[in-house]
């Protein structure tokens, strides 16, 4: 069913089940986000995608990534209050990830160039992680490896592998490092080995017939199963086929 709503006074159409963030962006309205990725379910952790929604005469602030659009709502994506709250959220985040280029650039857009809060100091060491949960969602929903999870609560919260040891189900695909907004996962290949630093996972790379190392054996096995490929599919690297 097609729904009609307005965003910043402009009438737009949306399909039932779409998120407000997706609809707004599709129509050219900018909304910042750090915990959202179209490939995985919305989670609502960073609180940056805050917008104002008026429904049945009642106004309220809400995150747009996990808000399913409704017909007849009026949405405002920018206002003084929204900017003020986003700036404060970015100031909190900047203190956790002061090195992240993405966070720094976004913060600067909101006039935040330094954080008044002391360097992290969280209960558990975070090393630049802002606990957006994207890595775990990608690992579970896209890769299917379920290697990562949140641990503990409150200011002791941490992202990691369930028992703080090398994650046995991790295939070292690197998807988590790819989606991480603060680039704090760390991922590289050296001497025939692939390493995912944050999770302390390293796997030897499989070699093609021509002797090129190109992906961890584990990952190839996993993908072959997922995509139902023939057993020798990865004997050739993509460039060799």
């Amino acid at each position, binding site marked *: 069913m097609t729904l009609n709503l307005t965003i910043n006074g402009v009438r737009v159409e949306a399909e039932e089940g779409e998120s407000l963030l997706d609809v707004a962006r599709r129509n050219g309205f900018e909304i910042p986000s750090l915990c959202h990725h179209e490939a995985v379910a919305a989670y609502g952790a960073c609180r940056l995608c805050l917008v104002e929604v008026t429904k049945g005469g009642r106004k309220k602030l809400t995150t747009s990534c*996990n808000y399913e659009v409704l017909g007849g709502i009026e949405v405002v994506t920018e206002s003084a209050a929204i900017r003020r709250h986003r700036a404060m959220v970015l100031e*909190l985040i900047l203190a956790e990830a002061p090195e992240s280029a993405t966070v720094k650039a976004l913060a600067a857009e909101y006039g935040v160039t330094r954080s008044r*809060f002391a360097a992290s100091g969280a209960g558990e060491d975070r090393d630049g992680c802002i606990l957006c949960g994207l890595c775990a969602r990608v690992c579970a929903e896209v890769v299917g490896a379920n290697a990562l999870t949140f641990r503990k*609560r*409150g200011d002791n919260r941490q992202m990691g592998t369930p028992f703080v040891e090398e994650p046995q189900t991790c295939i070292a695909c690197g998807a988590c490092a790819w989606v991480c907004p603060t680039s704090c996962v760390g991922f590289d290949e050296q001497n025939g080995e692939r390493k995912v630093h944050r999770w302390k996972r390293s796997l030897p790379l499989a070699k093609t017939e021509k002797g090129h190392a190109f992906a961890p054996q584990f990952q190839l096995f996993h993908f072959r199963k997922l995509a139902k490929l023939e057993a020798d599919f990865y004997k050739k690297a993509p460039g060799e086929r």
Partner: protein
Amino acid sequence: MTRIGKASELAAYRAELLKKRPADAKVVAVCCGTGCNAYGAQKVYAAFAAELAKQGVKDWALRSTGCHGFCERGTLVVMFPEGMLYQRVKPEDVAEIVEKTLKGGETLERFLYDDPVTGEKHRLEHEIPFYKHQERLILGQNGQLNPESIDDYIALGGYLGLAKALEHGADWTLEEVKKANVRGRGGGGFPAGKKWETCRNAKSDKHYVICNADEGDPGAFMDRSVLEGNPHSVIEGMIIGALAIGSDEGFIYVRHEYPLAVKRLEQALVEARGLGLLGEKILGSSLSFDIRINRGGGAFVCGESTALMASIEGRVGEPRAKHINTAIQGLYNKPSNLNNVETWANIPLVINRGAEWYTSIGTKGSTGTKIFSLVGKVNNTGLVEVPMGMTLRKIIFEIGGGIPAGRKFKAVQTGGPSGGCLPAEKLDLPVDFDTLWNEGSMMGSGGMIVMDDRTCMVDVAKYFLGFLKFESCGKCTTCREGIRRLHELVTAVTEGRATEETLQLIEDLSETVEAASLCALGTTATNPVRSTLKFFREEYLAHVKERRCPAAVCKTLIRYDINEKCTGCMVCAKRCPQKCISGERKKLHVIDQSKCIKCGICLDVCKFDAVEVK
């Protein structure tokens, strides 16, 4: 046990029970609630059982009951029908009580309650100021029944509300609850009837009815007292709710730390099923409904509705966005009606005695009574149940008996960790949902902490922020980082490291935490800091501008000194854990400030008022 096959047969069953229990029966009721148990109530009960047998007493029955509310005076023993209250009874007192009071009819003065303010002694329970001004609609039954006996409950009129609801049908029942305007006692104060209606109107093959018994507020134990003291009242309320909503399955989500409540509930469920009050075709009607018990996840946040439902489903107890109401899409995505323990316990009363009677109690906007856990710097502490709309002053000074040791009232914190602190100017406010909310505090689940002039309000704000930063689920940036940073900033104030800019940052950050967090833990977490900043700004400013803690609580900002009143008795020097007080016998003593850890022991032990704190 035989099933009662028809609603109308319940009255006959009850009549049979009453024949065996005349209204003037002599009963010794020993409070075996959690508080009294801590004072050895079980042993008192056992001693009564033994003594009654030993002394051959036949005309007195013995009853173990749930919490009577006046826990600090435990173990409490009430003798019916007259209602004489003996307090602070110990096992070794029992032989004498049986001999002199039960057999001899003599009143033993030393067990009577003596008013700490007037020194007056009171014989009867209902004459004691603590009880006199209460209206114990819910808690009152606790003293009159054994929570492990469904017959005790039925004898008091239990399950008659259910019979009446079945007789009049679902529509009538819903209307009655709506008319009574019962508002949720678990925190939000949302009208129960409205929620029931939303849930019932949500199209689905399945509707759930859930009881929130997660009670996570530090120091709160009203729900626990109801569950342990009168489990059937909650169960009956839920069955009536199931009828009105059209549900066949219910859950009671009980806080992890309440094993006795679980045991009592389990037994009550078995007894209710046995009599045909629960399960298939309840009282021979077309209503089938059963209840299961879930043990809580052990975190404060699990009491939040969406987290609670996730936890019942076996997932991590973490709140999710509620753009669609849980009454429409809740547990397993089905319409689910969640109410608090005390809310459910009100339902049988509403149905039994009617909405008109119910709305005559309390105020127009907040009907009925509310149970508070009255604690802190107040003479009488315990559970109090009062009609809504009673003033804070009456609760604290008449029921609570005022502030001990002649100190001055400073503030009262209502609503649990996310409530606000109200100053003396607000003492004449009526306690109801809307008034408290408009003042920046809330009813919450009914916590009421009284503070005297030795309390530092900045320190209070720090305490609650410390609790919440640990209990936040950690999902939202604003809640997880926001509360942690607020705690950091307020700590800086208590340590004299803050400026007026810090106060501004506290205010700005509070605004964002409130506006941008996902669930009510985050959106209300700033109440303690905001309300103290509003009502006690001077105290914050003293910390910031003068590096002084007016209440002499914040360690970094205070020092202990010994003045010329010192007689050289040497008591402080002996008790000081740091051994940093020096001085000869009968000479002025001196504190070595470099070693002092500001524990305050010297102040407490000095009999001559010679130790001062600044």
